[in-house]
């Protein structure tokens, strides 16, 4: 043991003796601890019930939510697809007045075509126009 250690041991010995004189009674501290445990146990069931009730509410909420999530997409999608089909089937009521086949007015017009085309046979290379 070095001199420093010897010196420190003496100081700590003095501190230990002083602390020993001021120590609270074990019996009192122990009894209070036991009493606190009893109080804690009495409170325990209330906490358990509150926690259990909270868990039940949370579980019920989650179940309802997941059930709603499972059915909602189909319900929402059905009217949309019905509406699209309805639009595709629709024909304008004035179609009968036109001297063209029904639906021909909505067809893409022929590019670079004229009534004179029948008189002058002309061939145009349309591939060169691509990319312009």
């Amino acid at each position: 043991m070095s001199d420093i250690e010897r010196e420190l041991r003496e100081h700590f010995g003095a501190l230990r003796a002083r602390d020993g004189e001021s120590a609270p009674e074990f019996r009192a501290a122990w009894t209070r601890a036991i009493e606190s445990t009893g109080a804690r146990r009495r409170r325990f069931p209330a906490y358990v019930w509150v926690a259990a009730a909270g868990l039940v509410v949370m579980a019920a909420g989650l179940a309802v939510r997941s059930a709603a999530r499972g059915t909602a997409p189909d319900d929402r999608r059905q009217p949309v697809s019905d509406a699209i089909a309805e639009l595709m089937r629709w024909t304008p009521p004035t179609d009968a007045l036109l001297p063209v086949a029904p639906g021909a007015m909505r067809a893409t017009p022929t590019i670079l075509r004229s009534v004179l085309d029948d008189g002058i046979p002309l061939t145009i290379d349309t591939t060169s126009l691509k990319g312009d």
Partner: protein
Amino acid sequence: MDRSELERELERLHSESWGWALACLGYDRASAEDALQSAYLRIVSGQARFDRRSSFRSWLFGVIRYTAMEERRRRARASLRLTTANEGIEAVDPAPAPDVVTERAERAALLEAGLAALSVRQREVLQLVFYHGMTIEEAAGVMKVSLGSARTHYERGKQALAQRINQVDVR
């Protein structure tokens, strides 16, 4: 370990436990009393169980240390809320208590002041070794640090404390 056996062991180590609680809480008597009682409560309620992996004393000191850390945090939060106006005032008063008249009490007060200037780890390892007579290895177990780390804290703390005590002694 049944309750009566537990009680006997705690009673036997009560004085030492008190000293350790005081050291963990910077010699604040009120905090140390609360921490010691909370530690007993933790033990008697079964929150802390002795698993015989270390000596009963090492385990008990570990429980007290943990409880004291919680107590320190609780007090720090409370004092932060209540005494924000007193910023800058030192928490630890290194001056000896007024009733310190005997040489032993003076030594104790001197040591207490010296310990207050050390880091928490240094203070803990010195307390465990010199006050409670533990080996550095046992102290490392209580402090939950490696043996090498405990040795470093021990050596540095020892030098710093001796220097501080001698400085004050010379004045």
